[in-house]
């Protein structure tokens, strides 16, 4: 059956070992984690895990059920197909020889990124957006030579009813 990407938002007890229960579930059962990000919510004893995963519809159904079965999981929301805001941030350290510096600044500008670190031979560019946008920036910067990247993984929240268009 066809593989699908799913974006899950998981509220969990903010306790030691909880992340390990989740990742252990995925490795133990052979499920995929494409990206993962975790942080505290407004309630200090609750954390939100945002995860991108993929699998056949049957596997996705199992993933959601198995997550719900974990004692420390409060709620699993599958944002796929809902209206949501999704963002990822990347820090990209790119070679910046003098002949490329203007071009890099232009690309950063177009994607509304920022230069957050400057050296004689490099820039570190920060971009925020959906993963596709970050992919586009990476593509454009590739010819200059990317030294290192760090990406946060996706974070997402559902939109309140009636506000704005889908998934922007």
């Amino acid at each position: 059956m066809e593989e699908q990407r799913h974006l899950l938002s998981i509220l969990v007890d903010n306790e030691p070992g909880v992340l390990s229960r989740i990742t252990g579930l995925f490795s133990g059962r052979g499920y995929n984690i494409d990206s993962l990000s975790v942080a505290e919510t407004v309630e200090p004893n609750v954390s939100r895990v945002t995860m991108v995963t993929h699998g056949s519809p049957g596997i996705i159904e199992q993933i959601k059920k198995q997550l719900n079965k974990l004692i420390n999981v409060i709620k699993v929301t599958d944002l796929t197909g809902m209206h949501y805001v999704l963002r990822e941030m990347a820090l990209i350290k790119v070679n910046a020889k003098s002949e490329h510096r203007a071009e890099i600044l232009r690309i950063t500008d177009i994607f509304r990124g920022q230069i957050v670190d400057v050296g004689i031979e490099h820039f570190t560019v920060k971009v925020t957006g959906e993963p596709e946008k970050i992919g586009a920036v990476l593509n454009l910067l590739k010819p200059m030579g990317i030294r290192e990247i760090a990406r946060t993984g996706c974070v997402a929240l559902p939109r309140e009813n009636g506000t704005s268009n889908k998934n922007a």
Partner: protein
Amino acid sequence: MKLKGAQILMKMLQAEGVDTIFGYPGGAVLDIYDALMDTDFRHILVRHEQGAVHAADGYARASGKVGVCLVTSGPGATNTVTGIASAYLDSIPVVIFTGQVPTHLIGNDAFQEVDIVGITRPCTKHNYLVKDVRNLAKTIKEAFHLARSGRPGPVLIDLPKDVVNATATFKAPGEVRMRTYNPTYKPNIRQLQKTIDLIGKAKKPVIFSGGGIVLSKAHEELTRFARKAQIPVTSSLMGLGGFPGTDDLWLGMLGMHGTFRANMAVTECDLLIGIGVRFDDRVTGKTDEFAPNAKVVQIDIDPTSIQKNVPVSVPVVGDCRTSLSMLNDLLEKIDQEGTDEKREPWLKQIHEWKSTTPLAYKQTDTIKPQYVIEMLYEITGGEAIITTEVGQNQMWAAQYYHFTEPGHFITSGGLGVMGFGLPAAIGAQVGAPGKIVVDVAGDGSIQMNIQELATAVQYGLPVKVAILNNGFLGMVRQWQELFYQRRYSSTRFEHAPDFVKLAEAYGATGLRATKPEEVKKVLKKGLETKGPVIMDFVVAQEESVYPMVPAGAPIKKMLLV
């Protein structure tokens, strides 16, 4: 009231109605064992921590209560892992207390430190490391609640030495309230109505019952349901005893070593009602050809079990007993006239399968293992609690002993642990003191936890062990015979202990039968003898379990005798 952690533990065990603890002491649990001296708990000192968990498992199944284990840190804790994994796969309520090094040493690779919470995360329903004595009482309360509610399972609590030594004000915790855990007992009535409608339309329905029926004690509801709707019943290994094995509607076990009629009935049925089963691969064989013509209803308290392995038309999340009693109420409202006539062709077909291809074996002048089980059934009148080891002995016990009540067939179904049967029998005997408890064993498996015979003798627990002694790791040998051209790689025992003398060395009774005509005599004598007994049945060496569905084949493709 100010109490030490160890005393709080005792208070909480009392509050949970615990009467017996299976355990083994060590440095990290000295304080707990010391506190134990001032209580009335019965502590059964096993001879290996694996035995403690299997015993607690057997106790839980025979008594319907939560089994409790207490072991030390490090090796004590790691020794419990096989037992915990077995209880997890069979959904048995057990609470395991492990000692741990003091909190300030955790993470230091201290003496006898292991991260048992990390190790057992994937094989417990949940587990805890208690870091503050003030959380101890609440954690214990939660652990027992989790172990026995919803889909039951093992829960482990790791107790650092300084935590059990620290004092805190003890106040009995109130009702457990967990916003993250709320199992669904009562099913959706519309799903049940759909089930009833499907039954009305079905020409060839089958009920497939599993461990969930046994765990929720839904046998009476199931029997009423099946009889009322005239639907034949098969079950998984774990489901044996959930429906009377003597009933006309009983098909026998399903799957790899299921009966011909059960496997055929499921292959041909047009409606399959799975209740408390997870459609394990040992049952389904090739899933594409499993019940290919059937609409499937699946009732289970654990949503992850539903539709995990086979597509389901009507999923029902709920407790087996609650669901069945609601189904019975719905059935009551419908006029059942004409049901018998409607079912007649189907039941006739099943009867035909049963009479043309029954469970069978050939008698010879060596003892046939199947015969031993048949005689055991006859002599005990089907009333004994049977535990098993793993392998052929387990399958023959399942095939030839006919169970009529839950809690009478105690086997390591999901994990298939050799060495389970003897400690489980000890636990079952503690949990059901008036019962005859027999461990049906193989000569391989029994050597994996034979040390527990000393436990049985010490506590005067009169468990009986019937070894089907074939000189081989029989089940593995069978696969080698059938699928590896009889190349018996490391399955033959070239040396074996004298089990009669071994029994005697432990202070138990040892008996032996080498000819078919001795079987009944030895069984009778063994069962009448006070105290633990080993009966060594020297059986045909190369007997195989039939029917057999080769792994991954459709269940209708059975190898027969």
